[in-house]
């Protein structure tokens, strides 16, 4: 049997459930919109000018103690979609996560990573790691990788065909002094 009080209580509960579902929908819509609008630049990928300025600043800091910066350049066969670029950036950022590490976009197809306080030996190692990351993040997209170590000037890059993807290196780097 259903009394008036019970029916009223049920309607009150339904109203509360409806309000909660509306809140859930609004939250899900916000998340969807956020995902739709999110770009690699939103996530922290530096534009060419900002990257250049930040690299110059790191170079000045390194020069003060006569240290070097390892630079790895990625040259892709084509421009990436927003989703691809975001995926690449997220993967690179998980590796280039030390203070001062920079990830910048040079143009539609070229990206550069800078690892301050790294010498020539590190540059080769970094290039190997980056090659694995790019292959994982962008399967099927050909790329060339270049590496250099700079001290007081931007290095000239010679493109190096990317080697077959090595086994993914653990995302652990040796601690670097700053």
């Amino acid at each position, binding site marked *: *049997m259903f*009394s*008036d009080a019970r029916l009223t209580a*049920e309607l009150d509960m*339904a109203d509360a459930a409806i309000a909660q*579902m509306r809140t859930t*929908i609004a939250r*899900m819509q916000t998340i*969807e919109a956020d995902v739709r609008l999110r770009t690699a630049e939103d996530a922290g990928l530096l534009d060419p000018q900002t990257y250049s300025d930040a690299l110059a600043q790191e170079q000045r800091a390194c020069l003060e103690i006569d240290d070097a910066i390892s630079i790895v350049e990625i040259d892709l066969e084509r421009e990436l979609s927003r989703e691809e670029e975001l995926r690449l950036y997220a993967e690179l950022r998980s590796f280039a996560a030390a203070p001062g590490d920079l990830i910048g976009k040079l143009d539609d197809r070229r990206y550069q990573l800078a690892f301050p306080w790294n010498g020539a030996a590190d540059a080769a190692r970094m290039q190997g790691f980056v090659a694995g990351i790019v292959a994982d993040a962008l399967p099927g997209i050909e790329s060339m990788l270049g590496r250099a170590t700079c001290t007081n000037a931007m290095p000239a890059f010679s493109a190096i065909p990317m080697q077959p993807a090595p086994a993914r290196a653990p995302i652990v780097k040796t601690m670097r002094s700053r």
Partner: protein
Amino acid sequence: MATDETTISERPSEMEAQRAAMAEAHEALLANDLPRAESLIDTAERHGRVARARLQSRVL
């Protein structure tokens, strides 16, 4: 003990319709079909308003 409340043997059809719409809306939410979930919640709300109005008129 005397009471002014009336009782009925079945839940009013509008309330049953509301429950059905809410169950469907829940399914749509789980399927991440937000437009359908929103539409079903609107339907559930309308059924609820009608049910409440009928209940109040009966009580009065």
